[in-house]
């Protein structure tokens, strides 16, 4: 194995042989160690392979390259207006202008982030009157949006619960697996999506959570499940909480769409609040990427509800200790925007309004898409699952081949798991999309569902 690697290196190095002149005679034990007869400028990174393209970002790139007028980008998980333009919330523009006028400095935040933001974000999530806040039982750290929050929690789990496993839904957001892999936290999947109903496989979910070793971490999407758009009902949430309690599992919520799912910030937090009310210790990762349109500012938080304030302090101190060698302290700009918006009653009211409008637009395109599908599809297929799903995404039930047909024939870009982002759909394009889905479903090659 080593010698073939060396041979490969020599072969590959053909063109620079004249330059370096010393490639021959090099052996390589593994990627790292280069044994050589004399010191030469052979790159240490010879063995670094090209990483695979990101499954989601690759979609946008292909879309950009497409010259067809009818093209539609339903891959991106970013909100678009009816005119299919990115949207900066008015309340965010206001906040930024205000911040510019205030002319605050850019000093380092503490490791745990901006205090005003941490207070606002916890209140938004748990409810300002929640006893756990009053009792000081929540450790909250500003972190780098949803990803950063999940990663901090994962690193904490690896350090303090090294035997534990995280249970993640099948399917889930692709980056969840990367996060736990890189944090070296073992994971396994619980059943979630039922392709037969294009709905929730509730029994499978409960069975798998039940079967896992006691004390596992269960990753739950607080609302607007990504990628399926399928959420448990309130009754189902109660049963999920029951089994988690019985098994002494730790609930771990990913809340990336608070306000974006139903349009109501409080309603979208009800699953989290249900668990907290039972007195459980809970991890919750938050993101303001979608609901405040702050995508690139990377603003979110990791919250850990603990049994006592003393525990919360200890947990917070250890989360800080994990953050310090990752990025020292979190970026200030997005935190200030959130703190300003949530802290000012007028702006907060305006935000809730804009939030409802964004969620409302998505609900409208859902309805129109369903109406178009029902009207156009003569096969009698039941498309109502689209109306039952919630949030930015819809799992269409199309398989990979059918999804490819969407792209190749109809210039509609989506991820290969059949997920479409309704945030990238306009009312004007619903009929075209319906035609494409019907065609791909019935005529696209591959096993139809």
């Amino acid at each position, binding site marked *: 194995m080593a010698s073939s690697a060396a041979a490969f290196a020599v072969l590959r190095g053909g063109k620079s042989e004249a330059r370096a002149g010393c490639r021959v005679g090099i052996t390589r034990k593994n990627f790292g160690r280069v044994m050589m007869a004399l*010191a030469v400028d052979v790159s240490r990174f010879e063995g670094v392979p090209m990483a695979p393209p990101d499954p989601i970002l690759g979609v946008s790139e292909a879309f950009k390259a497409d010259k067809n007028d009818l093209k539609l980008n339903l891959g991106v998980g970013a909100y678009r207006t009816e005119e299919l333009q990115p949207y900066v919330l008015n309340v965010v523009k206001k906040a930024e202008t205000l*911040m510019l006028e205030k002319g605050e400095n850019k000093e*380092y935040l503490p490791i745990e982030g901006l205090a005003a933001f941490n207070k606002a974000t916890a209140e938004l999530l748990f409810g300002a009157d929640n006893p756990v806040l009053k009792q000081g039982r929540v450790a909250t750290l500003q972190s780098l949006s949803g990803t950063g929050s999940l*990663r901090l929690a994962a690193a904490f789990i690896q350090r303090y619960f090294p035997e534990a496993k995280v249970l993640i839904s099948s399917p889930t957001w692709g980056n969840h697996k990367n996060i736990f892999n890189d944090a070296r936290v073992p994971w396994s999947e619980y059943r979630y999506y039922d392709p037969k109903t294009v709905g929730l496989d509730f029994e499978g979910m409960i069975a798998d959570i039940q079967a896992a070793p006691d004390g596992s971490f269960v990753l739950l999407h607080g609302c607007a499940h990504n990628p399926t758009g399928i959420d448990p009902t309130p009754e189902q949430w109660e049963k999920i909480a029951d089994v988690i309690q019985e098994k002494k599992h730790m609930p771990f919520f990913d809340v990336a769409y608070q306000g974006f799912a139903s349009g109501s910030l409080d309603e979208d937090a009800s699953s989290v609040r249900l668990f907290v009310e039972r007195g459980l*210790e809970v991890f919750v990762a938050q993101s303001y990427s979608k609901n405040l349109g702050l995508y*690139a500012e990377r603003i979110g938080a990791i919250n850990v509800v603990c*049994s006592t304030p003393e525990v919360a302090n200890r947990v917070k101190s250890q989360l800080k200790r994990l953050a310090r060698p*990752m*990025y020292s302290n979190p*970026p200030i700009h997005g935190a200030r925007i959130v703190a300003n918006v949530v802290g000012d009653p007028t702006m907060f009211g305006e935000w809730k309004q804009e939030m409802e409008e964004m969620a409302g637009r998505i609900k409208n395109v859902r309805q129109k898409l369903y109406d178009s599908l029902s009207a156009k599809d003569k096969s009698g297929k039941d498309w109502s699952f689209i109306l039952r799903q919630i949030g930015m995404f819809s799992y269409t039930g199309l398989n990979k081949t059918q999804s490819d047909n969407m792209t190749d024939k109809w210039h509609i870009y989506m991820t290969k798991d059949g997920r479409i982002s309704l945030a990238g759909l306009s009312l004007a394009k619903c009929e075209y999309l319906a035609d494409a889905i019907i065609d791909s479903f019935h005529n696209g090659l591959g096993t139809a569902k």
Partner: protein
Amino acid sequence: MAMSSSLAAIRRRAVAPSPLAARARAMASLFGHVEPAPKDPILGVTEAFLADPSPDKVNVGVGAYRDDNGKPVVLDCVREAERRIAGNLNMEYLPMGGSIKMIEESLKLAYGEDSEFIKDKRIAAVQALSGTGACRLFADFQRRFLPDSQIYIPTPTWSNHHNIWRDAQVPQRTFTYYHPESRGLDFAGLMDDIKNAPNGSFFLLHACAHNPTGVDPTEEQWREISYQFKVKNHFPFFDMAYQGFASGDPERDARAIRIFLEDGHQIGCAQSYAKNMGLYGQRAGCLSILCEDEMQAVAVKSQLQQIARPMYSNPPVHGSLVVSIILNDPELKSLWLKEVKGMADRIIGMRKALRENLESLGSHLSWDHITNQIGMFCYSGMTPEQVDRLTNEYHIYMTRNGRISMAGVTTGNVAYLANAIHEVTKTK
């Protein structure tokens, strides 16, 4: 606060005492075994300073620039850049590797405006979360692709360097750097350690304004270090957190890097805009790795992005916009150069003043090192006990290794500071 009525009904039932809920509350915390973390040595100093009610208190602890009134500074070029940004641009995700423009400008600063490596696209570079993030990405990259490698870290160094490579699970060693007796560089010890390290070792080098000592090799010494690195095939990783801030001239502060590049090394480099652009809390920085060729650079960059993706997905946009607006606009860039020189000059002035004050107080000790050292920090040579006295008796806050952040010294407090230092260091 509208909730669906069915959910509200369920919650009412849940609030009523249930065996499960009661049991849950009575449970011991699952976090019983989590100990409290020790306080961060540097940030803890500022906390203590803030808590002190004394009107005389002086903070020469944390490394953030202050003006002559002891106030934090937002550079004019930054304010102007922000004015152009506010409310205008949308906040769509940056590519995983960050802002292309910001990366381009950062590479020019580090490698040279006309660098052939930039032209040949041989540098794998990503926007990073300031210097910390850049170092951490590199450390994780080392762990993944060079699993047998280790990192040699100078003694002393910024304390977080140890945390970074430790959390990345890359083994650490140290190399000789600071010479306590002279408060300068232990060059002979340094060269010995370089020679004795196994061939192909990885070394962390502070490109300029060493933190915490302020002691930098001379140009001649850098050349010798570079030569020895070539002989040993060591890998130089530069942490450049103070470009422009040290001498006032960014080109001059990049001299060590340029020497290594001229000598044909393939380097890694962490850059930060925290100090030189005053963007501390914006977390703006860049990690670059010089590769063999364009193809390799593309591969390496793709892997750096893979490491970043499960850490934070993509880097924050605001700071990068500020950096690229400033560096892309000739007038703003020129203003920046002026302002960064202004900051460096003020520090150099305060070094001179502190030394002169100590000498005129009649101190028998040598304080040359105050003006010999460069950048934000001065390694005073004071003992932890002396530092404690400074804090307890004079309300002067600094880290217990005797490091003084010169940025916290002003014309208003330099005499007070000198007097206090003299008092605790004078021999009876």
